[in-house]
């Protein structure tokens, strides 16, 4: 067992089923289509910064979260996790390799979504100020590589913790689609809690600032602070999944 061997095994595993390709395709197509509709039909009164081209990145991240959860949790369903541990009884190298491979695949999708969305917006609104000039512009677009990579790790962690794909997906979708948006409605403290939600944090590093502008929020952290915060959550969940899977019976 070497690092190269387990990485190769996890790469073959991930790319030899249809699911990751479908998820990657859906993530990119949905994100670009949404961006096209947004820039084509929503009247933007001069507020078109480069970060607003990432309006659909959260959609892409949710699809990647689904991809990563399925990549980990279905292994328990089909029994291939047991085969993996039979082949790599120390377990941790195989789980690290899975994180690395799913993370890298997610990062590639993130870069496609980031640059693809920017390109679509640029083509539709060539007059707008969408050139990649400042560091912040580059961060908003290329930064999707990082936020998607971390989302991939988060998904693998959730898959390892839940083991059951349906439970893990249910939790992730309820979280991203309901809880993160609904906390705003809690009286008094809702806005403050909202600013500590993980995917809000990811958006502050690389995404649109629509809700911030709409709710007139003053986020407590800067973009890099939010990246560190989001990254810490993802790495903690991934590590927890790894440690529990290492200890439990397969």
């Amino acid at each position: 067992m070497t690092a190269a061997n387990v990485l190769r095994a996890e790469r073959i595993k991930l790319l030899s089923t249809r699911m990751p390709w479908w998820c990657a395709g859906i993530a990119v197509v949905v994100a670009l289509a949404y961006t096209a509709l947004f820039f084509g039909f929503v009247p933007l009164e001069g507020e078109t910064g480069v970060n607003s081209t990432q309006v659909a990145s959260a959609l892409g991240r949710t699809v990647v979260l689904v991809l990563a959860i399925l990549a980990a949790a279905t292994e328990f369903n089909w029994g291939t996790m047991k085969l993996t541990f039979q082949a790599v009884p120390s377990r941790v190298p195989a789980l690290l390799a899975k994180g690395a491979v799913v993370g890298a695949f997610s990062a590639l999708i993130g870069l496609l979504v980031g640059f693809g969305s920017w390109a679509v917006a640029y083509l539709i609104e060539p007059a707008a100020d969408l050139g990649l000039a400042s560091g912040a512009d580059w961060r908003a677009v290329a930064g999707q590589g990082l936020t998607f990579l971390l989302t991939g790790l988060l998904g693998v962690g959730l898959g390892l913790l839940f083991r059951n794909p349906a439970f893990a997906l249910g939790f992730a979708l309820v979280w991203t689609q309901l809880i993160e948006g609904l906390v705003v409605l809690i009286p008094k403290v809702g806005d403050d809690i909202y600013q500590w939600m993980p995917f809000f944090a990811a958006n502050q590093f690389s995404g649109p600032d629509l809700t911030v502008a709409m709710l007139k929020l003053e986020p407590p952290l800067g973009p890099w602070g939010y990246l560190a915060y989001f990254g810490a959550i993802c790495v903690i969940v991934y590590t927890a999944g790894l440690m529990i899977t290492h200890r439990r019976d397969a």
Partner: protein
Amino acid sequence: MIEATGLTKSYGDKLAVDDLSFTAEVGRVTGFLGPNGAGKSTTMRMMLGLDNPTSGTVTIDGKAYRELRDPLRTVGGMIDATWRHPGRTAREHLRWIAATNGLPDQRVDEVLRLVGLESVARKRAGQFSLGMSQRLGIATALLGDPRVLLFDEPVNGLDPEGIVWIRKLMHALAAEGRTVFVSSHLLPEMAQTAQDLVVIGRGKLIYQGTMEDFVGRAKGLGVRVRSPHLPELRTALTEKGADFREEDGALIVSELDSDDIGELAFGAGATLHELKPLTGSLEQAYMQLTAEAVEYGTGQVREVVR
């Protein structure tokens, strides 16, 4: 060689495997028998490091499974043939497993040929019949050309041709000096496959030794004799003081062997149409020994043979 020492696994307060010690020798096929729920699969999962024993150890050539480097090169195990992603082709399935232990893709094609799946190598495993899945599972076990092989119910779902194939494969593997450890519910099949036996019931060891000794325990069943001259034979047997009973127009004689009975019949002028020692079968020996240890007994009718 496989060596289990005091192997114990409990789930809560239920003991699945209870202080189990046995060995499986090099160059022999060791059958692993036990009623449903006796703890066979749990034991095999512990052998492969998938489950942690509550106490005790199981070693392969003196090493715990988890200490093995590239374990597939030492131990090939098939616990469950359905352990595969249905959307992945047979070849890709074997490729990723081979990759973990640094085995070349060429070896994948070799084992596919060996188990007769080369023509469906690029078919999704989800479309496989149970028999094809079993062959894929066996291919997985053979990937690393290991010196120790573990199979849990390998003939399940195979057609007669497949069963004969597995039996020959096990014998060939053992003849090559490998340790073959195989569990099965199919006793007649096991009788033809295994040379040694490990029998467990309710997680405890019931028997460990050779198949011959085990079957020998079910002897003392008598000799079956058919003859058109039954009255003469009856008289001769009574004079000799032998115990016998009648069954379907034949005599079942105990305490005399077939030589004695043949001579006795010759002396009495009785022609014999049948003279057959009723040797014990694996099934009889097994039933006698495990009757007490059946987990899911059904009263009088004990259904241990699937």
